[in-house]
């Protein structure tokens, strides 16, 4: 434990005033004033409508906002202190805010929330990101399975465009499905719910000194839940928020997710006996849907960056990939855009070799992740091409095929991991 507590005196006092709760909803923020108001109001409306008798608290972990984010969160409180008493609220609802030290976006936010949960002992917790487009009826979809049906982890399912979330579709999801034998579609959504039990468990895990970042911790949470015998399910929520600002920088996204994924593979080796075809995970409230409106995608640029990557990063790739894989990549890169195809098999080998190299830390781990970015772009080029005209079902089939390939090559990963290279 750190010498200094993560809980400041003021925050602790607020927690004391909140007392034991049944439901805890955490919202991490950093300069999120543009969106957090709606998020918190939607959470509040959801709690009032679907959990009117339960004691609930909204806890905001803020990374040092200067735009009034904290005040917006506190404004969602319901108490008898305000003159305009909320007519439909049976109980007081506390909505409190705490500052944490450290970079915004670090796992400190989640750690703060879990520390609060440790003291307030909720039966069910949820974490909602500050820019979520949550609707009030997402609250019961996430929390009822945990609160009433005793499940431990609810990951979200969304209605998304077929070309959204490709990193998850092509890397994160298949790897988790192959290694841990569970088809969790969104291992780190912007909305997730878990039981107090699982929260305590995560709080006690030894991952907080490692800077996995927010998404990284959620990913670890999902894997820990699968691996260590917790009950999980997926709940369909609605459309995933489309970020209005520029799409996430790919490298940063990969650092946030692929890095922690590889780290997790190392620290949480799969314990479940593997079964082929990945154990399906209980799905509640409907299946994920795929929207198909046309999207402008600069395939040429993707291809170009792939080729540049393969060529320029050769010295680095040489220490990461096996000779055979690298040669094949170079061959394909030289083949020209029209003939270019980044096959599933090649992609699987690429990913596994990267994972093994990460494990052995052949060079700095962060560099390994960065080196994967251009190769990923190549894969996306192929994916987009293949699924240009696909509907939801065909997309599913392609993804299943990819997942099966990942599973087929698991022994290969095993060899690499244990040192044949």
């Amino acid at each position, binding site marked *: 434990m750190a010498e200094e507590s993560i809980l400041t005196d003021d925050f602790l006092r607020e927690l004391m005033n909140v007392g034991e709760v049944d439901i805890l909803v955490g919202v991490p923020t950093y300069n999120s004033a543009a969106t957090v108001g709606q998020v918190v109001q939607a959470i509040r409306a959801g709690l009032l409508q679907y959990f009117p008798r339960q004691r609930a608290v909204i806890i905001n972990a803020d990374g040092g906002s200067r735009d009034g984010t904290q005040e917006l969160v506190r404004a969602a409180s319901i*108490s008898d202190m305000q003159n305009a008493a909320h007519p439909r609220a*049976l109980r007081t609802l506390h909505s409190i805010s705490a500052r944490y030290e450290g970079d915004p976006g670090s796992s400190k936010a989640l750690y703060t929330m879990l520390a609060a949960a440790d003291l307030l002992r909720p039966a069910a917790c949820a974490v909602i990101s500050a820019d979520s487009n949550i609707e009030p009826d997402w609250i019961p979809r996430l929390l009822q399975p945990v609160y009433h049906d005793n499940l431990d982890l609810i990951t979200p399912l969304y209605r998304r465009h077929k070309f959204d979330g490709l990193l998850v579709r092509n890397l994160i999801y298949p790897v988790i499905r192959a290694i841990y034998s569970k088809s969790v579609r969104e291992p780190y959504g912007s909305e997730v719910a878990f039981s107090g039990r699982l929260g305590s468990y995560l709080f006690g895990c030894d991952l907080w000194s490692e800077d996995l970042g927010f998404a990284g911790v959620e990913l670890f949470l999902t894997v820990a839940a699968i691996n260590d015998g917790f009950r999980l399910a997926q709940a369909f929520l609605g459309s995933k928020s489309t970020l209005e600002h520029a799409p996430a920088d790919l490298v940063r996204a990969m650092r946030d997710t692929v890095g922690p994924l590889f780290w997790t593979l190392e620290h949480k080796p799969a314990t479940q006996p593997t079964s082929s075809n990945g154990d399906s995970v209980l799905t509640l409230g409907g299946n994920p849907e795929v929207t198909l409106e046309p999207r402008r995608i600069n395939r040429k640029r993707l291809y170009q960056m792939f080729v540049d990557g393969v060529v320029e990063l050769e010295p680095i790739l040489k220490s990461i990939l096996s000779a055979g894989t690298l040669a094949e990549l170079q061959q394909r890169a030289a083949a020209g855009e029209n003939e270019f195809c980044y096959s599933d098999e090649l992609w699987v080998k690429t990913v596994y070799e990267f994972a093994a190299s990460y494990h052995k830390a052949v060079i700095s781990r962060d560099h390994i992740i960065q080196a994967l970015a251009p190769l990923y772009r190549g894969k996306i080029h192929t994916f987009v091409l293949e699924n240009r005209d696909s509907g939801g079902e065909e997309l599913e089939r392609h993804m299943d095929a990819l997942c099966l390939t990942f599973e087929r090559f698991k022994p290969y990963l095993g060899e690499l991991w244990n040192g044949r290279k």
Partner: protein
Amino acid sequence: MALAATQDPLWYKDAIIYQVHVRAFYDSNGDGIGDFGGLAQKLDYLKDLGIDTLWLMPFFPSPLRDDGYDIADYRSVHPNYGTLDDFKSFLDAAHKRGIRVIIEMALNHTSDQHPWFQESRSSRDNPRRDWYVWSDTDTRYGGTRIIFLDTELSNWAWDPVSKEYYWHRFFSHQPDLNYDNPAVREEMWDVMRFWLAMGVDAFRLDAVPYLLEREGTNCENLPETHQIIRDFRARLDREFPGRMFLAEANQWPADLRPYFGNGDEFHAAFHFPLMPRMFMGLKLEDRKPITEILQQTPEIPAVCQWFLFLRNHDELTLEMVTDMERDYMYDEYARDRSMRINLGIRRRLAPLLDNDRRRMELMNGMLMSLPGTPIIYYGDEIGMGDNVNLGDRNGVRTPMQWNGGWNGGFSAADPERLYSPLMLNPVYGYPAVNVASQQRFEHSLLSWMKRIINVRRSTPVFGRGSIEFLYPANHRVLAYVRQWQKETILVVNNVSSSAQAVELDLRRYKGNILVEMFGRNIFPRIGDLPYLLTMGPYQFYWFRLRKI
């Protein structure tokens, strides 16, 4: 003979009231029914408890189909309870001990057995025809709500005798009097004068919102009704100063406010909506329902007073709560459907609170410290239980349990003759819960009630003072400051079942020493920092603030 009129005209602000059924209290003549003779014999018990005002349930002659609220003769006493002389002796005995007496006056309706109604219904031309509200159709005053939902389907009943419909807001055997008729008003004043002259100190006017009907309204709280009340009050002040009118009007506080007028209508009224919210706050472990209803309670004229109660002879009414709140109360307090009646719960205080001594103390503590005059329902001072198997609301009207002997000391008659079965189960039965055993121990509920009444009476602040809520961030603590003239009292209540720490912002009272009122021990002086109190489950503190 009345208590001297020179005594404080605002006596009702300092009163501690005991609500009792004559027939349930003590039987002096062995017929199985309590009577005035018996009540008179038990006045010492009440005086010892600290009571200074009695509120009697209706004792007029009546077919007793609505527990006495269906009156058949306004100027007499039901033979079950004794004679008019018995009543007078009792009244004198009470006054001698400094105990005032409030009696019921069911103004709105009579029994259909009352001679007036018998005459009125006999024919359409009868001189008393107009004393009640008759109609050819049952469609007039449509949209008026039905009060006894479990038994009545309409506010009109068909009279086979005169072949017309008559209006009744309550049971169909309780036809409403027609207050548009001046003769009715005069007669009712005459009735009241009869009792006032005898020495009765106050009337509880039953069902006042419903006195008059007007088409196109909900027939409640009409301005004309208020005028009638003002007239009565004016006469009261003229002829019998120092007496009081108490309103029974189950309305939202804002709708109740008009009944105080400008201090020229009722002296006092029951604060109905507060009571279910106290129970709700206790279950939610959240003070919010309590503070909110009091925030919504309007200011009343200086001479007027709220009367507060935890339970009474009726069901714990849930009329004045939202649907969500009612469902919550039903689920928490009356899971067994047989406990529900009309829109309420027909249980006594102790069973509602799970026979939890700490909760009973807390609720009584709030009753005694919130702004208003407290009313104790007979038997709640010893924690009596209820019998939901008795029909209607009779489950909370079982005989008073005096000792563990024959009939619980209530009556010498055979148990089968009693007006109501006794409570017999091992938890609430009379061998377990009775006055005699509780008088033996200092730690009994009865002894505790005496003590708290004593502390309450030691200062007029509780009855007469202002109230200002503190809003500590810990929502499980209800804290408020009562002030009157130079005295300030801080009340802190932990409405949760677990220990709490609470920080109070008492900067306005900086420099004061807190003196806890029961043990009279000193607590730290208020400084600049928030005042930290730690409280056990359901604990409450009363602090007197002293600056020395």
